[in-house]
């Protein structure tokens, strides 16, 4: 046991070191961070993210390199009491795994010892509220998004009663956690869909660098800052207790027609987005984070940033309608042509209807990028507040 305790404190040191490295490089304006300590040699593998707190990890957490989302359907007969038992199992497993310790029944305990900033974020779909007899507590925004003309949604990427977002800087940690948590839940749920995504690996790009998607674009430049814009993302104590420190998660699977995109030259690609490919700077600026000048005209009197450019259509004039994007690329060669590459577009916002929906409607109505992107999956989940000390995940809803 002494060994275990030592290991855990060392792991905590690792997490601190990651945050410290990020701060030292002056990046990560957008994401959470922690204080500085000297890094151990296997920094990435040993690093841990805290599990308990007022908010669940995996939202404001600096995005890890790899993510898997598993959506589940509840089995018939699973109600509030059974859901509580499932929460007891998952809370214990997640607390152990994210701390670098094996699950209680772990058949591969060694795989748990490299957590690599593992986080597991629990979300409830509308079905949980119905199954638990808590429909009156279901927020109005917790429902499928309305159908958009651009959608080509497939059942196999859409909906779900429950979701686990599993993220880590090592894919083995993600795969192990996904398997253990699913295996422990087989009497409560069946898997509805699984999506996997990736971003830049740790150390591959400078800390705080905006990710690039598979179309080559810098993607996610204008993201809220999780510290200064927390009110855009999380609910506070003024609402229902279970949602205090909670948020909502939209998961859209966006397939990219990369073969079609190949036919577009660089100029056409930059025109489509309204940003330069090289550095993500708006076509009216010189650096990525320059404010775009939406009124700027070229020599012919035409807008420099086209009226239908993605940048323009994705912007909201209402600062309270912004939301946090935490997407990952996917590349699944086993999928049909035209469905192999894309983006698992994941957003967190306090209110789906007030924040996500207006922007999504704007993009669905007009966006040059729509010619090469196809939404094929869609799901909305409520993310309960984080587990406080001694508390089960979701306990403040399920009672």
């Amino acid at each position: 046991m002494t060994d275990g305790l030592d290991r855990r404190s060392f792991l905590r040191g690792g997490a601190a070191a990651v945050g410290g490295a990020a701060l030292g490089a002056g990046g990560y304006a957008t994401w959470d961070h922690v204080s500085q300590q000297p890094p151990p040699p296997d920094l990435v593998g040993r690093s841990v993210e805290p599990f308990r707190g007022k908010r669940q990890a995996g939202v404001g957490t600096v995005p890890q390199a790899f993510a898997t989302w598993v959506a589940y359907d509840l089995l018939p007969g699973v109600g509030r009491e059974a859901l509580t038992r499932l929460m007891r199992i998952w809370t214990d497993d997640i607390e152990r795994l994210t701390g670098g310790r094996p699950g209680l029944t772990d058949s591969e305990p060694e795989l748990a010892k490299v957590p690599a900033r593992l986080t597991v974020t629990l979300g409830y779909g509308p079905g949980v509220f119905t199954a638990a007899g808590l429909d009156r507590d279901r927020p109005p925004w917790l429902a499928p998004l309305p159908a958009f003309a651009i959608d080509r949604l497939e059942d196999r990427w859409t909906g779900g009663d429950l979701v686990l977002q599993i993220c880590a800087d090592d894919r083995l940690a993600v795969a192990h956690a996904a398997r253990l948590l699913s295996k422990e839940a087989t009497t409560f749920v069946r898997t509805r869909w699984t999506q996997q995504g990736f971003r830049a690996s740790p150390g591959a790009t400078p800390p705080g660098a905006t990710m690039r998607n598979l179309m080559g674009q810098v993607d996610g430049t204008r993201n809220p800052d999780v510290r200064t814009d927390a009110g855009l993302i999380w609910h506070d104590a003024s609402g229902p207790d279970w949602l205090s420190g909670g948020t909502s998660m939209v998961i859209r699977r966006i397939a990219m027609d990369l073969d079609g995109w190949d036919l577009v030259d660089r100029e056409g690609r930059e025109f489509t987005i309204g940003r330069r490919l090289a550095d993500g700077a708006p076509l009216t600026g010189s650096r990525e984070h320059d404010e775009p000048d939406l009124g700027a005209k070229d020599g012919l009197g035409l807008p420099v940033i086209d009226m239908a450019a993605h940048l323009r259509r994705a912007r909201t004039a209402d600062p309270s309608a912004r939301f946090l994007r935490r997407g990952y690329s996917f590349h699944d060669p086993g999928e049909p042509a035209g469905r192999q590459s894309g983006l698992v577009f994941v957003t967190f916002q306090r209110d789906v209807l007030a924040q996500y929906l207006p922007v999504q409607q704007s993009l669905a109505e007009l966006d040059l990028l729509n010619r090469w992107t196809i939404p094929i999956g869609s799901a909305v989940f409520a993310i309960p507040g984080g587990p406080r000390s001694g508390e089960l995940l979701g306990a403040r809803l399920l009672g």
Partner: protein
Amino acid sequence: MPRLTWARLAPALAMFLALTACQSSISEPASSTTGDLTMTDAWVKAADSGMTAGFGTLTNTTDHTVTLVSASSPVSPMELHEVVANASGATVMQPKVGGFALPAGSSLTLAPGGEHLMFMTISTPLAPGAEVTFTVRADDDSTWTFTAPVRTFTGAKEDYQSGDSMNGTGDPSNPAPTMTP
């Protein structure tokens, strides 16, 4: 659909909520000693009926050997079991002769495929996520009571067949028992 009656489970749930974490809770030993017998990472394999087993790590922090000779639970008669190879090389599960002896300061890990606490015939379904209480007894009549969470587990050929002879670790072709959700 669920064959478990929730009313029957409610006391177990209430008991769980009273605990601070998903760890074993420990009662006072019957005899006054320095140190104690503790159990960490305890869990019991879910089952609807018949046999099942409990696992975890026992640690003896007393200054003398603790020899556990029996176990009991409100939900089942219990035995202390080991898994050994017989003369023909097959592994067999059998009661541990002399019980589990833990020298002062030592730990004993009970795990699937090894030594374990056997629930011989459960009287109520043990649903995943529920909790089970059991008591172990030493040769000097000291007792310790632990509470362990119930978990789904299909590994290590832990397929116990109710009413079967214990001369085998279970038939892997035997499907896992149907489980209460």
